């Protein structure tokens, strides 16, 4: 029993793709650029003339399922295939999914994709059925990250590193206007 979340020290990201490869290898995600549970989004561009570039607005954002506490995907699924597990992770009953894609359309974060191997919609589940299932305490993307920018842990445990870092540092969530109450936090 836990309430898992993730915090990103996002400004440290160098967009090296280590997290994406680690995730795909750990979780057996099909190859192909379109298949992925997580990705890095390059926000804004370097502006201006080469000799006088403005690099101030460019940032690299870690994108994946935001583990909404009020998850639009869960409500949207006509088959009741989506549920929240005992660790607060939004999961899928694979056998109940018949690819209506309602969850994909409902998600404000574009977190889901079609897993063509298993004929379901798939997304990040914090390595719940691989690493966490074996009792490990880190996710694949977190442990491999050169910048160590991904904090993962139990939000309900005030002694967890993620709880401490969220208490110490200012942070924000993505698309707060959507009212989804994400459990993924971006550290300022």
């Amino acid at each position: 029993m836990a309430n898992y979340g993730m915090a990103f020290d996002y400004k440290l990201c160098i967009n090296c793709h280590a997290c994406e490869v680690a995730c795909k290898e750990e979780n057996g995600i099909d190859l192909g650029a379109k298949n992925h549970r997580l990705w890095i989004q390059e926000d804004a561009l370097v502006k201006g003339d080469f000799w006088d570039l403005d690099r101030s607005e460019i940032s690299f954002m870690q994108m994946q399922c935001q583990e909404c506490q009020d998850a639009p995907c869960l409500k949207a699924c006509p088959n009741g295939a989506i549920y929240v597990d005992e660790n607060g992770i939004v999961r899928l009953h694979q056998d109940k999914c018949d690819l209506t894609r309602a969850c994909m359309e409902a998600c404000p974060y574009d977190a889901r994709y079609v897993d063509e191997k298993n004929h379901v919609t798939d997304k990040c589940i914090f390595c719940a059925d691989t690493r966490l299932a074996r009792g490990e305490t880190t996710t694949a993307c977190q442990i491999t990250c050169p910048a160590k920018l991904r904090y993962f842990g139990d939000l309900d445990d005030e002694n967890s590193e993620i709880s401490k870092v969220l208490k110490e540092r200012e942070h924000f969530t993505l698309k707060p206007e959507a009212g989804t109450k994400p459990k993924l936090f971006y550290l300022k």
Partner: protein
Amino acid sequence: MKKIEVSRRKFLQGSVSLCVYASSAMAMPLATTKTSKKNAEDVPYLCNMCRNKCAGFARVEENIITKLNPNHYFPKSRNMLCPKGNAAIQAVYDKDRLKYPLIRMGKRGDGRYRRVTWDEAYEYIKDKLVKIIDEEKDNRSTVAYCNGEGFNKDEYIKFFGSKLGSANFLDEGSICLNTKLGATQLTIGDVGEMDVAGSDYMIISGANRYESLITPDSVDMLHAKQKLVVLDPRCTMTAIKADEYLPVNPGTDLAFCLSMIYIAIKDELYDKAYVKTYFKDFDKLKKHILSKKYTAKWAESKTHIPAERIKRITKEFFAASHPLYYLGRRSVWSQNDFQFRRAMVLINALAGSINRKGGIIFGKPFHLHEEEINEPLYSNTVDRFDLDGIVYGSQKGGSWLNFREKIVTNTSPYPVKAMFIRKHNLMQNMPNIEKTKKMLNMMDLVVVLDTMPSDTAVMADVILPECTFLEREDMVVSFNRLEPSLALRNQAIKPMYESKSMQDILKGLGKKLSVPLFKVSAKHDADLQESIKNYGKEKAFTEGGYNMTELYKYDITTRNKKLITAQFGKKVYDSLKKRGVWHPYIDTQKEIFNNYYEYYPKEKRHYTVERNYKVHCYLKKLEKHGFDPIPAWNDHYDFKVPKEAFRVITGRYVTTTQSATANNEMLKDFQEENYLWINNDVADSLGIKLGDSVAVMSSVSSIVIKAYPTNKIAPQVLWLSHGFGIHAREMTHAFGKGASDNMILEDKFEKIYGCATMHETNVTIRKL
């Protein structure tokens, strides 16, 4: 669970192309394999996806590697694996891998081979070698050998250099970082190591540490409290992330450095106490630099960096408590490269940043004992020739471009008739590919040891399939100087197909070659004849060291155990087998935050060691050979780009390691082909849009590549990543994707270290 079906299907004898073998050889696991819920074996290994070496644990389930995880015990790699490290699984299970020994049937390069047994392959090599060495009257240097992989290099040299007796060894140094190593060694007497973590102000010229990851440097830069200043003619990820980015004209970093030295000396910003104690010929340096008037204004005219910025940064650098001018390791750029690298060392020295925290440190590496072998003396062997006309050069790895030039122009003092090539993609790794092809076509025997059917492998007469690094144990290696450690690559899975480790390949080859080659020596070598007369054949053979398998009397596991236990004890050996790593604080290392560790306690790190050394401002040998004994700017360093032409520079993407990762199915999802970076305003004026095909023409050849217009590159400069444009059809994922830089780069080299200068080619372009 996905299983590898090891159904060794019999192949039709006769002429079959490599790619037919590849696709029909055996059932492979699906490209990714989800890890199971069960605990599995975690084998500690060392990565080999690039030259760097990080440590990891390979998760092995039912003899399949399902995941690679970082090893938190290794100080060097700081508990991380990069995208390439994570994708190493794909290198093991690449369906295009070399699987069986092959002998060429078609023409060189057309990929037609027949499958043979290991013994047939060895026999073929033996017959050819006996003939060649006999023809050359036992001049063993007629057999050249080269290696592009860091691990096992010394052992490979022991076999072909010490045992077989050739003086012609070549490695990647002369197309990589030899000028940097040489400049540092000659200036402060050691190649040193940079303490990035300890520096509070760091300048980087051109080295792209956030896309060409080197541990621990790249990781330390992310966490160090330091100001980072980056000079680059391209706005790389490192430049994007820098505190200050200085766009610079390619090949002019030396002018920036000279100006920093000028300002530091003129304004007396340098560390006077340090200079007084350690500098040799400082008066000469001072006189030279001041008389040349390398002012900031002068440097601005070369570099395009505003003079005021140069002045301010120089002041900030010398005012910092631990400044470091980062000595990048990267290919050599231009004719001034050695002087540029040396100027960086001198700047560090002027700041006193040598042998102290945050500077170039000497440290205390572990020195591993050598396994001694008996080396035969070949009286008829002639020395190497590729350093003729080179001032210093690497006595170990030579000069590729000078070597190749002498071969193809028939100006070498003796013919080189055979070449052994291990993990070194000659057909992609040096400028002017046609010349490399010509060189290989002049050989009577080309043998390739590799894992992949590279452009070079398909030029071979005999292909010997080596296993990947996850399928073998290697000899223990000593790493680093500030926080030294030992690391051992353990075997995660058994070699697949009929591939073998290098040691096993050389053992088999040695068994086959020792006696026949001894007989050739006995025929031509007067000293050996004398020895046989005095001691008899058997004793002359054994005591003369002619048994080429001497090093392979024991297998690698036994050799490691003996070596490590004898020098460090059983506890260290056990740690290396279990954790893959040993360092003195391994049992007490502390997690600082989020899986990031402190290894050596601060007070135990070897920031400063006792050492007698001098900083050499003046190198007499250079003057003797007509070069500047103190770094200076020469008129011919002013590279002219004609109107409507462009200067080409190269580099690589974060997901590629030269051409070695070209066929990796995971990594190709991130960068399937390379693009030509062209300034967006220039592209606009030429009507070139993103993805348009562009022909790029140089004096050597031409390529076609897709355009990437961007403001992140200067108007008269083009950039393309190295490692694409693979010609071998047998590399099915890589073939025909993007274009090769070395097709168009002119093969020029500088004469101090004999290194290829990669950034001195002008091209014109045409939209197709």
